[in-house]
């Protein structure tokens, strides 16, 4: 929603600027004396150069700050923890609670936040599921925590979003989101298979 609002507003600004330019080029200004030019300068530059960008900035910060807030990981204790390690060119997915390890697929319950602990075994990768959350890098020597939350069960495509060498393009993965009950069942089944 926000994106479309922002994109729409910005498109309007863009069209406005281009039209303004066309009119400015076409029109015959008549005689403009220095005093008139001075007045015009103040009006245009203060209006367009200071007020306009300030309004735009405030307009996107007001919804932006709370959204940023919501993306902060919450306390680590009571959420499902999944450890994901980037390799050239695959993802190792590990569930520390059950000792389960998967390759290029993540399973998680719907409706509750999950913490993805990101690490890298070699170069920098970036874990990204476009429809669920922003991306976060997996960097050698560092651990980053991404809060992931899906409202609806289903399968979501993910990709590596930081260039990591020859087969970077093929470093995709899938996130399977189950209802909480299905997820418990899956977890038990998978742990038995193991």
């Amino acid at each position, binding site marked *: 929603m926000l994106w479309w609002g922002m994109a729409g507003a910005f498109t309007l600004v863009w069209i406005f600027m281009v039209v303004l330019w066309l009119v400015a080029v076409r029109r015959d200004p008549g005689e403009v004396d220095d005093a008139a030019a001075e007045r015009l300068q103040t009006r245009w530059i203060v209006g367009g150069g200071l007020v306009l960008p300030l309004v735009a900035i405030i307009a996107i910060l007001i919804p932006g700050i709370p959204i*940023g*807030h919501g993306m*902060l990981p919450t306390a680590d204790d009571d959420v499902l923890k999944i450890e994901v390690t980037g390799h050239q060119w695959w993802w190792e997915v590990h569930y520390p609670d059950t000792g389960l390890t998967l390759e290029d697929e993540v399973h998680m319950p719907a409706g509750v936040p999950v913490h993805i602990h990101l690490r890298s075994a070699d170069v920098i990768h970036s874990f990204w599921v476009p429809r669920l959350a922003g991306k976060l890098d997996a960097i050698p020597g560092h651990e980053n925590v991404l809060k992931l939350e899906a409202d609806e069960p289903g399968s979501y495509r993910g990709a590596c979003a930081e260039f990591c060498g020859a087969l970077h393009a093929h470093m995709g993965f899938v996130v399977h989101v189950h209802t909480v009950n299905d997820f418990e069942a899956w977890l038990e089944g998978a742990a038995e298979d193991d």
Partner: protein
Amino acid sequence: MSRAEHPVHLVAGLVVWMLWFVVLYGLLSVGCAVAPPGPGQGIWNWINASLWLISLVVVVGLALAGWWCWRAAIVSDESHARFMTRVSAAIYGLSAAATLAVALPVLFYPPCV
């Protein structure tokens, strides 16, 4: 040459802004490395407080400098001096505004997460 039209005022405001920015980012990083406040504290902790305090001091200082140049601009009758003092005053003013704006998130976000 009066002091307010010295060319150093063309850049001094932004130099201060930059130094402040380095201190802001540096203090935050070092603070989080050395003595990170507990996660429950939200924005009420020593790091946010000191960042905010430093920022306020800088804003006030820059604003005063801007006002000083502006007064010099109003009384000066020579065009070179007027040019220099006006631009300098605007630089100080905008530096103060930029300081305030960049410091604003200190009021909203906890420091180290």
